[in-house]
Each structure stands twice: as C-alpha cells, then as structure tokens.
C-alpha cells in the first residue's frame, strides 16, 4: 500500500498540468504526433492513480487532447465516471466536461452515472446542478431521461433562474429521448412562458422553437401565448424565435396569419435591429405570402438590403428574394438589375444566390437569352463558378422533362456548346440529358446526331476526363440514330480514331458497339442500293445526284428543289455545305416518297463497292489489334465486330467482278445477316419507368426471398478471383480461370475440359443453385438467337419508320422561323421519377407529438368543462397536480361538455374578457377546426388510442387540440 501511495505522490508532485502540456507541445521539441503519443502514455499511467488530483488532471489533459487533437478517449470512460463523482467542484467539473465530450449512447458506463446525476441535480450547490444539466443536455439517453425526469421536473420551477433556464433547455433533449416525459413536464414548461424573467422566456421560447420544427401542428393551441410574446416582448432574441415558430404555424392555420401579420409589419417598420427585421421579412415571404401589403413591405426592405454596403446584408437580401421567387416573381423582376449586378460580386455566396435568382426568372420565353448570357459568363469565370452556372442551367432546363424548352434543336446545341467550355465538369448530367432527349424527343434526334458528330470528331475532347461521359453519350447517339447522320463514314472515322485509347474501357466498349451499328447501317445501305440498281435503275443512279431526283421523283421534282434550298439555309453547321445540302435534299426526298421502298439517303450513294471494301479492311485492321485488349468488354465487342467484318468481307470480295445476276443472288445471303443485325438495333429504345421492375410479376417457382446464407459455406471452397472486374490474362486466358469464373463461362467454347469436370462436380454437390439442367446440358450453346429472322421479315416497316421519322424532323425544320410548336416529349403515365416513399415519421417523433397533443388536449379540456359547476373549481388544481396520470378520467368527465367548446386556456383565463367574448361568437369556426383536428387524431399514443376507440364519438372532439378562438 505504501508503495502505491508513494508513487502517487511522486506522480502528483511531478505531474504535468494541462498548462505544462500545452507549453511543451508548443516548444515543438518533438513532432506533434510523437509528443501526443508520449503524453497519452503518461496519462494512461496517471489516470490509474488513487489520488483524485492526479487522476483529474490526467483526465483534463486527455479531454483536451481529445477535443483539440482528435485523440480517442473512449477507453477512459470509467475514469470519467470516477472523477465525476468527486465532491470537489474542480474535479467534478473536469469529470462532467469529459463526459459531455466523450460519452455517447453506446457508452457502457452510462448506466453508472444515473445516481450521480440525480444527486447533483438535487444538490444545494446550484453550480453542481448546472454541471449535471449541461452534461445531460448532450449525453442524455432514453434511460437517463426516463430516470431523471422527476428531478428535472422539480428544477423547472426552481427559484434560481440560473438553474431554471438550464432545466428548461434540457427538457428538449429529454423529450427527444423519452417522449413520455411530456406528460410530466409540459405543463410546467408552458407555465414558464408566462415568466417575468426574460432569461427564462429566452429558454422556453428556444425549446418551443426547436420542438415546433419537428411537428408544428401540435403547438397550434399555444398560439395565444406566442402571440402575446410577439406583441409584448422587447427582447429581439425572443422575438426572432417567436417569429420562427409562427413561420411554422401560420401555414397550418390561415386565421393565424391574419392575426400576426400586423404586429410583424409593425416590427419591420419600427425595429432598428437588422436581425429582427430580416426575420420578419423572412417570415412574411415564407409563411404570409398571401398578405399582399405585408409582402410589399417586405420587398421594400429586401431592396434596402440589396443595395447595402455590408455583403452579409446583400447576401441575405438575395437569399430572401430567392425564397420569395416561387410565389412572387415580380419581386425578383423588380430587382433584376441588382440581381444581375450581383453576378459580378467578388463574394461567391452572392454570386451563387444571384445565379439561383436568375434561374428562377427563367421561363419559356427568355430561356434562350438567359442561357446565352450565362454561358458567356461561364466562359470567363473561375472553374468552380463556371460549373455552378452549367449545373444550374442543366437543372433548370431539365426540370420536369424539359418543361421550359420549346426548341430542342437549340437546347441540344447548347449542350454541345457546354461541352466545349474548357472548365466543364458536368459530364454526367450532360450525358444523361443527351441520352434522355434522344429517347424522349424524336424530333430532336437529327440535331442530336449532328451535335454528337461534332463532339466525336474533335480529338482534343478525348483528352479531358470530365468529358468522357459526354462522349460516351455522343457515341451512343451516333450509333443509335445513325440513319439520320449526314455522313456515317465520318462517324466511323471519329469512333475509331487513335486517341480513343484514352477512354476508359467501359466507354470504349460503347464506342465499339456504335461502330458496329454504323458499319451494319452502311452495309445495309450499300446492299439496298445494289439491289435497287440491279433490279431497275442501273445506269441512272450511278451517274449523279440531280439525275436521281429526276428519275425517282419526276412528278415532284420542282417543288422538292425549292424545299431543298429552303432547308439548306436553315442549317447552321459550318462543315461542307455541299454535303449538307445533299443530305437535306435527300431527306426531303425520302419524306415525300414514303411509298418508295428504298431509303434514299445521300450517304448511301457514297458506298461504292470499293469504299465498302476499304471500310471493312480498315475496321479489320483496327479491331484486330483490340482483340488482345485487357478489358473483357472491349475485347468481347471487338472480337464480335472483327468476326462480323471478316465474314462480310469474304463474301463481298468473292463476289466482286461477277455479273449482276449472281451478285444479286450471292448478296442475298449476307444481306440476311446484315438485316438481322440491323433489326436487332432497330427496336427503338424508350424511357423506362422507374417502377417498371415492380410491375413485372415474378414467375411461379422463383424464390426471391430464400435465405442464401448457406451459399457462403458452398463458396467457401472456391477461391474468388482477386480483382473485382474480370480481366483476362492475355494469352493464358483459359488456364488462369478457376472454378468460379468457369461458372460464368460455362457455355463458353473456350472452356477447357478440366474446368467442365470441376464444374460438373460442383454441380453434383450443389445442384440446388443450378438451373434445371435438362436444357442447358443437352444443348450447351442454346443461346437464343439475337433475333428471329421469321419475326422480322417486315423490312418495309423499318423503312417506313425511318421515313416517318425524317418527315417529322424535316417538317420541324421547315417551320423554324415561325412559332415552332413544342415537340412531343415522351412522358410515362406513372411519372418518371422514383415514387417518393410515404414518409413515415419516426415512431419517436410520433409518440412525442402524440404526447404533446394529449397534454395540450388536457390543458384545454378544463376550460371546456367550465359550464359544469362541479368541475370548475377542481380542474385547475388537478391540471397541475395530476397532469398526465389520470388523463383518461378527465376526458370522461369532460365528455358531456365537449360539444360546447369554450376555448379558454386556464393560464390565460383571467386575462381578457373581451377576447373571451369574441371567442364565443366564433364558436362555429372553432368547431370547424375540430373537424380538421379529427382527421389527424389517428396517430395517437398507444394507451390512449384504445381508450379513445372505446369512447370515440365524443372523445375525439374533446381531445383534438382546440385552437383558442379568441386569437383567431
């Protein structure tokens, strides 16, 4: 014993205090981290000391290190409890501080401090009680709150304001953790609203402000109290809090707004405190926006803020404007100059607010101009703000399925322009919108393909990682809508350019797939043309464009030429004018002749035998090298296209130089192949409802909810491949794949014999997890063919579809200069956004509001029973004494009177006779609000609920929070 106590003396004498610790840390003899770890070692030793002084100093140092330097101190929680229980204030303080810094709901020793807290809460030394309250306000758990509610209840009426207001404030945490405390404490809390001490009022109003943020409706019955404070209080802090409460209550009860609007306007006019005035303005524009004169007053105040020197006020002014914008756009338009000027402010907050306001002003008619201004602005601003601008343009224009966009050609070009802005980092959004517009807006596809072509063809863009997603979308668009492209060959050039190796594999795969689409399209055109030539107009078609018009459209030719010219001018693209002329002409042509089976796009004429062979050669060359690519997606697709091209090429070259008849015959073979491939791509992709999956009924026998835990045991014997994505190891592809990957590759031809045997073995052991085996074993390559030639024999339909499509886009083109009707935007019946799940309020909140409603209900009830002479004398006392405990019986007593609500709160009963009289006059309205209340009475606290059901007809009325009418 002597040894241990002497060591603690040594510790005590030579222990470093917190000051010493800080000083030596500042000397920086050691690096900070090594100094801290050394100190922690020291503390770990000291904190075990039996000497309270040593222990508490060690704890203080530890708390400091934890709070300032982020050192974990959860290991010391038991020592914290020890120090808390010291009788010396100095130590106790250190202990409590440490607890509030380090304890949380999962701290095990919390159970040990209940008694200590209780002792300190009831201590005669009010500083001890204050410590305990402070600690509770941050660490109270359900258990602590439940066990200490009586003690806190006592302190709520403490004669010392120092303690009382802290007890009031701690109630917030207690209610949050233990809603039943409401039944005990609420009444007393409300009484404190009446207090003459401003500090107490600050505390209570603060608590109600927080409470009302979660469930404002429950506090409607207290509106008269709040109103009194709004009118009488001189304390700005309290007024601000009351305004916050009213801002939440007013939307729930229209009559409330009428009452409070005048006092609020009075504050706006009279008060010199900017904070109060701003709060009034905010309350008016958020919650009293129907009161015109008040809004006008508020807007004049906002204007004053907007031109103030102080950037804070300017910022808040803009902020207030943007709150007002949805309902009072005129307020924004009135201050347009100030808003636009703010776009140049050096303060980024102000810039962003002003941007938001500008976007709020955007409408169908001015979206083009505003976007133009902003885009120019984005070009010269810093990257961060530039993207802020782009982001807000994208969200505004994309809102509600491009609601404000009329001219989609313009918008698609705008998206292209955004991509070209050097700082652009909005790849993902632009990608989504490009694809989304492609799928939803048929009429925009032509322009979309043009924009995509411009993006794809620019090698510089490939170097910018932020744009890769956009390029991905562009590649998809180019492939999907290739039939609208002016020059497919050019697209292929763009898609296979060498710099595409800068793209990540996933996007490269999209590029390759698009190449397949474009190539198959080119081949189809080539074959169609060949068919056409061999069947009828052999010589004429080869000779040239103009002749073709004449030949094919002898009747309509003159008119067509005119349309041609018209549309040429409308095309703003800078590239090869001849080409685009031809293109648009031909589109018109095809439109006017839907009866023509042959699609006559200009591009098609470019496909001579030679050019096709060249094309195939090039693709073979490029994709030949890709077949050794490391990424599975790229490799797989490159192989597909490589094999496809080889197949086609062989036939085409074989048949060169033979006469027309045989060509026709032989080509029919590959034309079936190509048609099947085209058909596979011809199915138009549309937007898919987000709830689509849910509407598919699961087939019988599909067990979705089966517990697959035992899979773990099965997979235990399988070594999972180390990398997440499946990279093939180049040439030794087959040998490296293990059992699990062979699972994936089970139908793969490259699967080797040893794999299949292990697979079989695995299957034998765990047959449960395999599909029924009969089919897949007998025909291992029984993969459904990509498409069934039988079902897709209607080539005509496709051509018709195409012509219709071009028709629409051309019609659109023709009318550009007139008022262009907004194109159809595909919209799904059940909405495109994820259904917002019914927000189920947390049980805790629910029970809290339920409890508060109960208590407030009981509070108004005594007054309801006023006409009952027997009750009258007793209710007030009862309300105070037995609050909550015998609520049901009180309800029963009141049943008889429920139909005559005399809306008077006991607290304010003697205050204003005139008010009461007015209340009686308005009884009808009061009942109305009862009706409203009835609806929401469904979520009520457990015990009460059953009781309520038993007596439902009358009780409902008596329990609903009656809004005292004298206010309303």
């Amino acid at each position, binding site marked *: 014993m002597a040894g241990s106590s002497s060591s603690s003396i040594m510790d005590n004498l030579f222990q470093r205090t917190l000051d010493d610790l800080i000083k030596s840390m500042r000397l920086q003899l050691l690096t900070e981290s090594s100094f801290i770890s050394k100190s922690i070692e020291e503390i770990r030793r000291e904190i075990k000391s039996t000497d309270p002084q040593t222990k508490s100093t060690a704890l203080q140092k530890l708390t400091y290190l934890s709070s300032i330097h982020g050192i974990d101190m959860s290991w010391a929680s038991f020592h914290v409890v020890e120090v808390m229980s010291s009788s010396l204030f100095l130590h106790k303080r250190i202990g409590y501080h440490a607890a509030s810094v380090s*304890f949380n709901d999962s701290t095990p020793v919390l159970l040990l401090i209940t008694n200590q807290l209780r002792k300190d809460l009831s201590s005669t030394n009010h500083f001890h009680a204050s410590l305990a309250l402070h600690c509770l306000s941050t660490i109270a758990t359900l258990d602590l709150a439940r066990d200490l509610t009586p003690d806190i209840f006592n302190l709520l009426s403490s004669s010392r304001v120092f303690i009382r207001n802290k007890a009031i404030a701690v109630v917030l945490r207690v209610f949050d953790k233990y809603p039943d405390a409401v039944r005990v404490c609420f009444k007393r809390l409300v009484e404190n609203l009446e207090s003459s001490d401003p500090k107490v009022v600050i505390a209570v109003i603060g608590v109600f402000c927080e409470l009302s943020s979660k469930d404002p409706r429950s506090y409607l019955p207290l509106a008269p109290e709040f109103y009194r404070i709004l009118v009488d209080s001189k304390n700005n802090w309290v007024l601000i809090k009351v305004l916050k409460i009213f801002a939440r209550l007013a939307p729930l009860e229209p009559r409330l707004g009428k009452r409070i609007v005048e006092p609020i306007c009075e504050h706006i006019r009279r008060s010199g405190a900017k904070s109060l005035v701003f*709060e009034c303005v905010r309350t008016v524009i958020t919650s009293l926006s129907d009161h015109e004169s008040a809004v006008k007053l508020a807007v004049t105040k906002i204007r004053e803020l907007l031109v103030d020197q102080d950037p804070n006020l300017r910022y808040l002014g803009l902020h207030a404007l943007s709150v007002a914008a949805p309902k009072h756009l005129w307020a924004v338009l009135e201050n347009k100059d100030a808003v636009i000027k703010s776009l140049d402010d050096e303060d980024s907050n102000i810039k962003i607010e002003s941007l938001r306001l500008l976007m709020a002003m955007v409408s169908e008619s001015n979206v083009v101009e505003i976007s133009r201004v902003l885009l120019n602005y984005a070009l010269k601003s810093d990257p961060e703000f530039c993207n802020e601008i782009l982001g807000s343009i994208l969200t505004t224009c994309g809102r509600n399925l491009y609601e404000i966009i009329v001219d989609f050609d313009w918008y698609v070009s705008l998206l292209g322009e955004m991509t070209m802005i050097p700082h652009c980092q909005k790849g993902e959004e632009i990608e989504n919108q490009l694809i989304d517009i492609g799928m939803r807006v048929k009429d925009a596809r032509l322009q979309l393909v043009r924009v995509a072509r411009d993006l794809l063809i620019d090698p510089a863009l490939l170097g910018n990682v932020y744009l890769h997603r956009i390029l991905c979308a562009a590649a998809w668009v180019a492939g999907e809508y290739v039939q609208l492209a002016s020059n497919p060959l050019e697209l292929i050039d763009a898609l296979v350019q060498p710099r595409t190796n800068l793209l990540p594999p996933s996007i490269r795969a999209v590029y390759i797939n698009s190449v397949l689409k474009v190539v198959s399209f080119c081949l189809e055109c080539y074959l169609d043309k060949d068919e056409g030539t061999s069947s009828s107009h052999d010589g004429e078609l080869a000779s040239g464009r103009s002749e073709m018009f004449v030949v094919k459209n002898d009747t309509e030719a003159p008119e067509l030429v005119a349309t041609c010219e018209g549309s040429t001018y409308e095309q703003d693209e800078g590239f090869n004018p001849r080409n685009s002329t031809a293109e648009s002409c031909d589109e018109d042509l095809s439109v006017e002749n839907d009866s023509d089976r042959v699609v006559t796009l200009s591009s098609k004429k470019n496909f001579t035998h030679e050019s096709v062979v060249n094309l195939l050669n090039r693709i073979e060359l490029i994709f030949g090298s890709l077949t050794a690519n490391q990424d599975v997606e790229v490799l797989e697709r490159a192989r597909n296209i490589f094999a496809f091209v080889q197949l086609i090429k062989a036939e085409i070259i074989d048949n060169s130089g033979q006469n027309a008849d045989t060509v026709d015959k032989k080509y029919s073979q590959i034309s079936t192949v190509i048609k099947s491939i085209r058909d596979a791509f011809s199915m138009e992709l549309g937007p898919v409802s987000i709830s689509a999956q849910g509407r598919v009924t699961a087939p019988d026998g599909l067990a979705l909810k089966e517990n697959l835990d035992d899979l773990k045991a099965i997979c235990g014997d399988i070594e999972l491949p180390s990398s997440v994505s499946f990279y093939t190891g180049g040439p030794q592809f087959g040998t490296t794949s293990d059992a699990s990957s062979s699972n994936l590759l089970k139908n793969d031809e490259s699967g080797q014999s040893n794999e299949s045997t292990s697979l079989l073995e695995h299957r034998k052991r765990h047959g449960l997890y395999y599909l029924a085996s009969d089919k897949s074993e007998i025909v291992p390559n029984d993969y459904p063919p990509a498409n069934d030639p039988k079902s897709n024999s209607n080539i005509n339909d496709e051509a018709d579809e195409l012509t219709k499509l071009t028709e629409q886009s051309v019609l659109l083109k023709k009318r550009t200069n007139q008022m262009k009707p907004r194109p159809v935007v595909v919209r799904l019946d059940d909405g495109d956004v994820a259904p917002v799940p019914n927000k189920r309020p947390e049980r805790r909140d629910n029970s809290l509001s339920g409890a508060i409603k109960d208590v407030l209900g009981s509070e108004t009830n005594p007054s309801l029973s006023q006409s009952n002479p027997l009750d009258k004398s007793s209710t007030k006392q009862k309300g105070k004494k037995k609050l909550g405990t015998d609520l049901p019986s009180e309800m029963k007593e009141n049943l008889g009177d429920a139909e005559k609500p005399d809306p008077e709160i006991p607290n304010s009963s003697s205050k204003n006779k005139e008010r009461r009289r007015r209340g009686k006059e308005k009884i009808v309205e009061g009942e109305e609000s009862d009706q409203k209340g009835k609806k929401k009475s469904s979520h009520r606290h457990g015990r009460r609920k059953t009781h309520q059901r038993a007596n439902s007809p009358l009780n409902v009325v008596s329990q609903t929070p009656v809004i005292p009418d004298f206010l309303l």
Partner: protein
Amino acid sequence: MISAVLVMNTQGKPRLAKFYEFRPVEKQQEIIRNVFAVLCSRPEHVSNFVDAESFFGPDARLVYKHFATLYFVFIFDGSENELAMLDLIQVFVETLDKCFRNVCELDVVFNYSKMHTILDEIIFGGQVLETSSAEVLKAVEEITKLEAASSAINLVPKSVSSWRSR
C-alpha cells in the same frame, strides 16, 4: 439549434471545438479540416455565411468571423437567425475580451477550461441561454471562485494525509 462552435487559427489549428451532438473524434477533425479549407479560401471583406450542408448534413449553415489570427465559427440550422448568430459571435468575443483583457490567441490556447466555462454560459446544449456578456462574466467569475476554493481545500492532497495517517 447550434450544432457546433469552433475556434481555429488562420493556420487551421483548432483552439476550441465544441460539438453539441456526439460525433466521433475522427469526424470532428474532418469537419474542422473542411471548415478551415472553406474559410481560408474566402477573401477578406466578403459575407460571413457559408453553406455547411456538404460537411454538416442538411440545413446546416455556418457563420464565421475573423479576428486577428483567429476564426470564430458557429454552425447552426434553420432555427437560428444568421444575423443573430453573427451578433452572438460578437458577444462571445466581447466576453473573452473582458475576461482576458485584450484577448489574444495565446489566451485562448492556455485557457482551455475557462473558454468552455464561458461558452457553456452562453450556449447550453445547442440553445442560446444568455446574450449579455456582463451576465456571462458574472457567472464565470462565480464558477472560477468556486474552483479556486475547491482547489484551496485541496492544498494538502488527500494522498499525503492518508499516507501520514498510515
């Protein structure tokens, strides 16, 4: 409700960190770093408000004030008024100034405990209870006195007395 009060110097070293909801220490340090990154990127003479949603959850706002080498930062939600928070920082700093007579960073560094005492008198569990610096000073003085008294009793440490008695 106020969710945190931070004081840090212009190099990003925290001098006071008070969180009114429990957060693990690593998270606290991350928040301090994030706040500093935002503050030091802002030029002088711009507004004192910063959107704190990115690092403090929804509806979080931040008000800061720059005094000499220190940033005073309050993080709060929609139940507080921005300008009132700015005033509250002023009250806090005024109180410190009166308490330490021309407060400087060193005072803040070496008076960890007292800083908390002062702050606790103004803000209780995230709610503002006192907005007058005179009242705060009065309470803080009493607490300091009480602390001094309890340590005076302690001049002869218990361990010594127990050792003697043995």
